Every structure is written in C-alpha cells, then in structure tokens.
C-alpha cells in the first residue's frame, strides 16, 4: 500500500476530479438547496438565509489568512465539529463560514470564535466581512512562494488589514469595498477590477546574466516574449545572449517568465502601485477596470507604512464623500478624477496618463472639467 517509486503505475488512479460537493453540504443546505427566499445580515459577519420551507441557516463569517497551517485548519475543524455538525466552507475571498441551522446555536459559536487568539496576540477568527464594509483582501503568493514578485503579499495584507480592522467588523461604507493584492503584473487575481488594488511593480529593466543566459533560456522565446520588442539577440564576451533597449522596457516581466537569466526584482526598483475604482458586479454600473492612481511606493517591510497610509487616504475620502450604494469607481467618476486627486490628496503625475494600446480613449476629448 502507498506509492511505490519502483512501480509508479501500480494502482495509479487519475482523472477522478474533485470531491463531490454534495458530500460536503450541511443538511440544512442540502434540504433547502435552490429554495432560498431571502437573506438578512443580522450583524457584521452574521447572515441569515431563509428558505421557502421555513428553514433558516445562520452563517458566521470570519476573516483569516488564506496562508493557513494544518494546525490552524484543525482548530477550524474542531470548532465546526463542536457547533456546526462538522461542516464549514470558504468563501471566494478566503473567509471561513461556519453555518448553524438554529439561532440558538449562534451565540455559543460566536463566543467561541471570538475568544481565540494567536500567541502573538492577533485574533484567530475576526467576525465580519459582510455587507457595505470591508472584506478580506484577496491576494497572491508574494515572497512566500513565487519567483517574480515585486512585493510581498501576506505581509502587506496583514499591515493593511490591521489598520482597517474596525471596518472589517463594520458596515458603515457606502457600498462594499474590495481590496486585492497581486505581487507582480501577472496579477494572479482580479486586482484589475478591484475597488482598491495593491500591485507589485518593477521599475528596472531585466538584469542580464550573460554568462548563463544561453544555457538557461531559449533566446528566441525570450525575444518573442517582449510585448514592446525591446529585446534583441546579442553576443557578449563571446557568448550568445540578448540586449535590452532599456527605454523601450515597461517592466512587465514577461521576459523573466520565459528566461530565468533576466531577473527584474530590485531593492530600489521594485515596489507598490495602487489602482482604484474597479468593480466586478453589474449592479447599477457595469463592471470596470481599476485605474492606476499611485504609480509607485517603495517597498517598506515589514509594515509598508506609506502604502497603508495611501490606502487609508483613498478609502476614507471615498467613505466620507460617496453616496449610498455608490462604489468607489462610481464615486470617482461622478465627482471627476480631478476631484478624486484633490480629495484623496494624491499627487497626479504623468505616469498616470495612459500610453499603452487604448491610451487615446482615456484622454479627455471635451471641455468639460472642473477647476
């Protein structure tokens, strides 16, 4: 029994797919599948869904790091076994949801969750993330695992969420606010359509490891990878390699994806850009892209104070000024981007003016503007 390296194909099972979700549904969910009539948010982090059968399911949503140890998962399981018949779920934004089928079970569950803290003092299971407030920050690997990040992921998220903690547990915003983080332009996540996106960017052209480049990379693939045609073949110290026309580089990192001998990351060069005003939902306005409003903030581990500060400025300018139901991007468009920069006190620089493919469509062809 078990894998046998000498006979790797023994008992080999493939293409069986994921577990059947039906096995994992709590009974109140299974019984009322497709029968839900309406919901109510009883308090931050607590949802009640009511079925046409009269049944109700109470959900307690708690935030958390998606980077989780098995020890932590086991703790989650323990809680679930105690209160929720051994079922739970994760949301699309990495929150954990505990569900009970009776209001009476709610209080004990919530008390239990509330009490738990990590050794360092942080909460294990902050309740919140519902309604017109802040929910968890969707993010990527960062320095924990990826090879192309310009910034860390989990650390930045922790620093931001600590500062915005109260708003995770409140519902005082005009509308929901989705913050996302991606550690490089590959943007693993929907950060291009987030209310606030934290994006790792590089600002140095690839460094060329001429000595090993020809060994490590398919030079033609590296050349073809560059969207701006900045890379040309070259011979350096008698070795085949490439040359990069630095002025044509826009630091997308695509060459590095194809060729390990062209790293971009740098202490001074890499850092944070902030994008805002994107959304996914079709509610009232159509989905839209986030726009770059802070082109660069240096990497400041361990707590990225300038990044946190800039996010707070943006977020609270929005919260103070927007109308009910108005998403951040809708607000910016209503007041005009000139006002956005005024109200958020962010400097506007030429970097924010588009010069890529659709640039023209973002310039202003009108005399309508505000002084």
């Amino acid at each position, binding site marked *: 029994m*078990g*894998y046998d390296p000498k006979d*790797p194909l023994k*008992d080999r099972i*493939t*293409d*069986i*797919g*994921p*577990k059947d*979700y039906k096995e994992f549904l709590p009974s109140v969910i299974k019984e009322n599948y497709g029968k839900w009539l*309406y*919901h*109510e948010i009883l308090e931050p982090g607590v949802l009640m*869904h009511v079925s046409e059968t009269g049944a109700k399911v109470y959900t307690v949503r708690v935030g958390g*790091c*998606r*980077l*989780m*140890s*098995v020890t*932590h998962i086991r703790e989650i399981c*323990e809680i679930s076994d105690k209160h929720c018949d051994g079922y739970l*779920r*994760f*949301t*699309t934004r990495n929150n*954990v949801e505990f569900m009970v089928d009776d209001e009476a079970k709610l209080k004990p569950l919530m008390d239990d969750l509330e009490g738990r803290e*990590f050794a*360092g*003092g*942080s909460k294990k299971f902050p309740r919140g993330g519902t*309604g017109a407030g802040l929910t968890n920050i969707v993010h990527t690997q960062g320095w*924990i695992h990826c*090879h192309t*990040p310009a910034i*860390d992921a989990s650390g930045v998220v922790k620093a931001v*969420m600590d500062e915005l*903690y109260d708003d995770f547990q409140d519902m*005082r915003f005009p509308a929901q606010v989705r913050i996302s983080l991606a550690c490089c*332009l*590959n943007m693993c996540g*929907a950060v*291009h*359509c987030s209310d606030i996106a934290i994006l790792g960017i590089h600002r140095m052209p690839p460094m060329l490891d001429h000595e090993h480049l020809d060994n490590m990379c398919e030079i033609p693939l590296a050349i073809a990878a560059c969207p701006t045609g900045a890379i040309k073949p070259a011979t350096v110290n008698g070795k085949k390699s490439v040359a990069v026309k630095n002025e044509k580089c826009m630091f*997308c990192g*695509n060459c590095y994806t194809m060729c390990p001998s062209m*790293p971009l*990351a740098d*202490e001074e060069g890499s850092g944070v850009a902030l994008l805002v005003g*994107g959304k*996914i939902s*079709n*509610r009232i306005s159509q989905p839209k892209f986030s726009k770059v409003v802070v082109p660069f903030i240096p*990497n400041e581990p*361990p*707590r990225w104070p300038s990044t946190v500060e800039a996010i707070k400025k943006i977020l609270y300018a929005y919260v103070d000024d927007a109308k*009910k*139901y108005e998403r951040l991007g809708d607000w910016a468009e209503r007041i005009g981007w000139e006002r956005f920069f005024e109200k958020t006190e962010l400097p506007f620089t030429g970097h924010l003016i588009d010069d890529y493919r*659709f640039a023209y469509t973002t310039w202003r062809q009108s005399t309508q503007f505000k002084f």
Partner: protein
Amino acid sequence: MTKRKTPMLDELEKGKWPSFISDMKQEAEAREKTSVDLQTPKECVDDLLGLLELTYVDKVVHWKHGGIVGVFGYGGGVIGRYCDRPDEFPGVRDFHTMRVNQPSSKFYSTEYLRQICELWERRGSGLTNMHGSTGDIILLGTTTPQLEEVFWELTDNLDQDLGGSGSNLRTPSCCIGKARCEFACYDTQAICTDFTMEYQDELHRPAFPYKFKFKFDGCPNGCVASIARSDMSIIGTWRDDIRIDQEAVKAYVGGELKPNGGAHSGRDWGAFDIQKEVVDLCPTGCMGWDGSKLNIDNKECTRCMHCINVMPRALRIGEDTGASILFGAKAPILEGAQMSTLTVPFMKIEEPYEELKDLVEKVWDYWSEEGKNRERLGELMQREGFQKFLEVCELDADPRMIQEPRSNPYIFWKEEDVEGGWDRDIKAFRKKHQK
C-alpha cells in the same frame, strides 16, 4: 520559538488581524514537537520563516525561477520551486506547491479537511493556502520525491485529484449559488463539477496554447468574479419578469424591512427612500413608484440586480432563468487586462449542458488551431476580431454583444459581400476612364 531571530517578521505578529507569521510559528513549533513520521524536512517552516526574514531585509525574493517538476502523466497541478539560498535554508531547498482541485463552492466536511491536514503534515510543509486565486486548495511546499507520494495518497486514499496549471484547462470554480443564495439563476455547483469531470483530460494534460479558465457566477452580482478572471464566464440571468411582492415593497417603504438585507446598518443613512435609493438609481430608469405600487417595465430592465439586492424580500429574479456566456477575460500579460465579452446573451443551463459544451468545444478547436503559443483566447479574439469569433461560435451578430457600433468605417468587406465579386478589368475601366 523559531530557530532564527526574525525581528522584522515579528512586527507582523502585532495588530488584530490574524497573523500568518504567528500561524507559521505555531506550525514550526508543532513540527518540532510532533511524533508524526515527517517525510519532509522537520525544519522547513522554520527555514521558510528564516528565508522570508532575509527577503524582508533584502527586499528581493529568494526563490529561483520555476522548476519543472510534476507527477507522472499530468502536465499540471504542481508548481516547482527552489530556494536560491539552499545552503542556509536547506529545509526549503525544494519547496513545490501542489494544487488540489477544491470541491464546488468550497464546502467541506471536517473529516475530509483532517485527512488533508494529516497528509500534508506528513508529506508537506504543513502550510496551505485556503485557497489559491483560481480556487484550488494550495498545498504550499514539499520536496520533489514527495510529489508522487502525495498524489498517490490523494487519489487512492482521499478520492481527490489535482487541479490545473500550465497550458491546461484550469480548475473551474463557482459562487455558492443555489446552496445558499436566493439569487442563483442556475445551479453553479452542479455545472462546475460536471464541467470539471467532463474535461479532466484538458485539465491535466496541456494541449492548449495557454491556460483556460471557466468560472460560474449564479447571477450578475458576480461573486466569483468570472467576468474578470475567466476565459469563459457563465453568469446567471433570466429573461422573464422580476417577481414583485407589493406588500413586501410597502414593508420596506414603511421601515419594517431593512433595505439591502441590512448591509448598510453600520451607519445612519436616514429612513429608506425607495424613490432615491431604488427607482432613481435603476440604470435604465425602467422603474416607477407611485406611493403604493412599484412598477417595473421589465422589457427595459437590464437585470443589474440593484433593486433586487436592495429589496430581496420584495423582489425576486425571474423564473425563466439561464445564463449569459462571455469570453476572453484575463490578466494584463501581454496585451493588457481584459474582461469577458458578452457572446451568448442567453442560454438555458440545464443538464447535460450539451449546448454549452458544444460551444466550449468550438471555441477550443478554434483557439487550438489559431492561437499562438501563450496567446490567451481574449487576445486571439482581439487579434482576429469579434466577427471571426462569432463565425467560430456559429452565432449571428447581435447588438447585445457590443457596447456601441464601430465608429470607424474600416469594414473588412469580403468578396462575397459585393455583387459580382472583386474581379475587374482595367481595360474595360480605361475605356470609360482615360488615364
């Protein structure tokens, strides 16, 4: 206590938000103490913390580029990763992640989760991502020899397969849908599982020009963000009328029911004003409120969900439900980010989903044929044009597919569009028109 001092990381133990550092430390400690017969370096979490601390000092990542590893017969599901300081951090010399295909909408039994924990404690780092951005359970870091071991145990013992990576179909994912949401227009969980099973081969064996993602949103609220993150976005909608309970509307107006299910209760926004908050915000202006009756001109409604979101007890989605199918979303590399473009305004979504699968396969055939290496479907659509894409899908052009008609007159007419074709005789022309 961790092996090394991590003063910078320790800063991330402060504050109220759950600290991943604290959690990693607790795992490092647990590994230290455990009686489990660990198949991976005991100190791997400790070394990971050390490496991360070093990265916090250097501000440049300490992982090497890629690394081609995997399990036999599969072209995806594993992301190879090697540390660039194995001398100092041997516990994370090789530290590959495995992507495990999550169940639809991520419900779990604790029994199952415990099995995963047991496996990953023994054969991995004991660290996970619950979940990755695509939706997989990410088992974060193990050594090369353990990859096959984990795979064997997953499949043979846990009845659980890997998810996608590489130029494959990626692990499909969906919103919670009918399991707990009154807005679901079709069964997102069922189809997500069905498609995942149907296309196991595409998921595990790279045969595409690049990655391909399905995501299933039950309604236009888009809780799984399919319009931004999937090459094919299936978004629930309906084509009949919004169901209205006029008594409940009055209850909202009278203040007996909380608007938007109480989503704004953290601030005093004043009494609910149906005119201002619903009727005036309707993007099509198709609603009316005369003080006692709410009227919706459903023909003009674009099903944006706003009124329903605000008054879920009074308004319900229609009964003739299905989905809109959109194609082409992706992140910025190379040609800039894209959202999916509406291609099939409405399709019924019912088992066995033949119509939709037909469409998927037409699209894949086209993309496989015409797509360049590392060209996402959305980029191909842009390169060859939406008309071409419609031909591929065997669909007629429809104004619903566009935001507005073209403003440039640069139409690529075809020869068959022109009566008599394109052949002309310069001699005949010169007879009428001297040089």
